[in-house]
């Protein structure tokens, strides 16, 4: 059995064009702080050229950045703080695990996530941002930072390729991959999390908060309509991710209403948690054709 890729080459070309036009749209610009091109000033304090402010000395600070005049004036040791300079970059976490390979209408969740990933990567590379990412599957596939258009296309094509067969071993969890991202990404990189957050557990909280400390974090929850509402499809055997088969009669409106409420509660809870931690949260259904209208894309460079 041969499966088609998640996105065809024509679709990718169309997405490239749409990324170009979407970045021209300024309605979402206020979502992003980054407006300047080139090696731009970051909102983070650290090593740099521009003096920003002074703060009290803490053990471990470099003595060469001591702010002697302030130290002399106040009588307490102070160090200079500089505004960090950096190249703007995005990091895309593209989830292609078991739960994402599901879809009832239009396309798979993984395909929708791949479209968003392509839009973000194209928009970023068109703005001159650096792109890096990871395809979350078993084993996770890391993509090094690059500003080269060809390399970015290669990453997008890998995201849009046919899903490999499901592994027999356990797939990596979100909680196991988040600390690795934190370690590998330059501070201030825009991190996009494209997933259904099926395994957003308490273990993720610390890692996400740590990520948020250094990076703006955009979370896109990709969901299928059947995950929010069950169709009146009669008697079915539904198998969950845990392999347990539930025999249900979907003709029963009470059952469907119960499921709708429970699913809504679950998704609301996940959205609340992500928003509460400080992430930007977007819910995206698989049948949405223009995800660029919902998801803030990296743009605004040099304008």
């Amino acid at each position: 059995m041969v499966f088609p890729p998640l996105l065809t080459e024509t679709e990718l070309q169309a997405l490239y064009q749409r990324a170009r036009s979407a970045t021209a749209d300024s309605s979402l610009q206020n979502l992003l702080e980054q407006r300047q091109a080139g090696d731009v000033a970051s909102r983070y304090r650290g090593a740099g050229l521009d003096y920003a402010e002074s703060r009290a000395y803490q053990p471990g600070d470099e003595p060469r950045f001591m702010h002697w005049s302030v130290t002399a004036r106040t009588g307490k040791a102070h160090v200079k703080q500089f505004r960090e300079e950096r190249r703007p970059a995005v990091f895309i976490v593209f989830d292609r695990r078991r739960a994402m390979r599901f879809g009832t209408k239009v396309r798979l969740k993984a395909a929708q996530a791949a479209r968003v990933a392509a839009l973000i990567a194209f928009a970023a590379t068109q703005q001159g941002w650096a792109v890096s990412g990871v395809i979350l599957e078993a084993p996770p596939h890391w993509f090094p930072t690059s500003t080269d258009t060809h390399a970015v296309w290669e990453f997008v094509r890998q995201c849009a390729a046919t899903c490999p067969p499901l592994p027999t071993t356990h797939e990596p969890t979100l909680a196991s991959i988040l600390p690795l991202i934190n370690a590998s990404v330059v501070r201030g990189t825009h991190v996009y999390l494209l997933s259904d957050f099926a395994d957003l557990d308490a273990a993720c909280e610390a890692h996400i908060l740590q990520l948020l400390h250094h990076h703006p974090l955009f979370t896109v929850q990709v969901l299928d309509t059947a995950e929010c509402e069950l169709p009146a499809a009669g008697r079915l055997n539904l198998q969950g991710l845990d392999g347990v088969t539930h025999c249900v009669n979907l003709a029963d409106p009470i059952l469907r209403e119960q499921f709708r409420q429970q699913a809504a509660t679950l998704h609301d809870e996940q959205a609340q948690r992500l928003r509460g931690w400080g992430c930007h949260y977007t819910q995206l259904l698989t049948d949405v054709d223009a995800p660029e209208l919902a998801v803030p894309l990296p743009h605004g460079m040099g304008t």
Partner: protein
Amino acid sequence: MNIDWLTLYLALIPVVLLLASTTLSQRTDRSLSEVERNMGKGGVFLHPLAHLLPATKIPTWQRHLQRAIILWLWLCLTLAIAQPVQRGTKLPDLPPERDILLLVDVSISMTLTDYALDGQKRSRMDVLKTLLQDFANRLQGERLGMIVFAENPYLLVPLTRDPTLVQRQLQRLTPTLAGRVSAVGDAITLALKEAGKQPQRKPIFVLFTDADESIGRVDPEAAASLAAESKIPLYTIAIGSTAATMEGDTGGLAYQPVNLALLQTLSKRTGATTYQAGDAQAVEQALADITRQHQNVAEQIPRYEQQPLYHWLLLAGLLPLMLWQLWQRRANT
């Protein structure tokens, strides 16, 4: 209660198929991909949030019951294939019977039209067929066999209790079926050989012929002596006239009268009689003489009344299934 299984070997087929399918399914299960296996399970769909659904799993006892019902049905069907019958009272034994071998001459001279019926000329063959038909009808309950002969003798119908078979085969008789001239001696030899297959039974030979002279490898008289030695009566029925010539068309054949003297010699040697076809009284006499002969005890295979039982098995198998389906339908609505 005695139960016989008529086709026990047929019940082996489902058993063998079951074993084969289980081994095959085990083998294919390993080679199929996960997707195909899911499709094969019959409507199992994946859903990431299936755990939110109420656990309306079929209770274990229901699944076991369903399995048991299917197994029970399979068992009943398999047993039904073996055709169980209940053995009833013993049927009465077959009446004693005679083994009568009809030796029929089909030489070319049988086409001669010696006989006249209602002013129409009839060939010897027609008369012979009518005669044989009459014999087969009148000798119901006896075992009849038929040997046709001309140059060579052939066994057309082995000894059988089926008079219909004999009558059917009679219609196939045509002159020159076995050659042109009649070798009576060879025919008697073949009949003796056929009779020798069941030496404990005494057969009766009835020879229908228009033979004029003896042709063939065995002299008829010598063959008749052999029959006499085995105490087998050889009745002869002469067909055709004894007149030296015949008026009218002979169809290009040399006319051949029947050699009554030879036939009488043959019969006498075995203690039987010669009759002439076309003479109604003579034929009646022949039949009466034959039926006076010694009767053989019929081969007795014990026979019983048989009451088929398969429908009870089908009912026993299908009734639980129907009730189960009805109950499920009620439970689902």
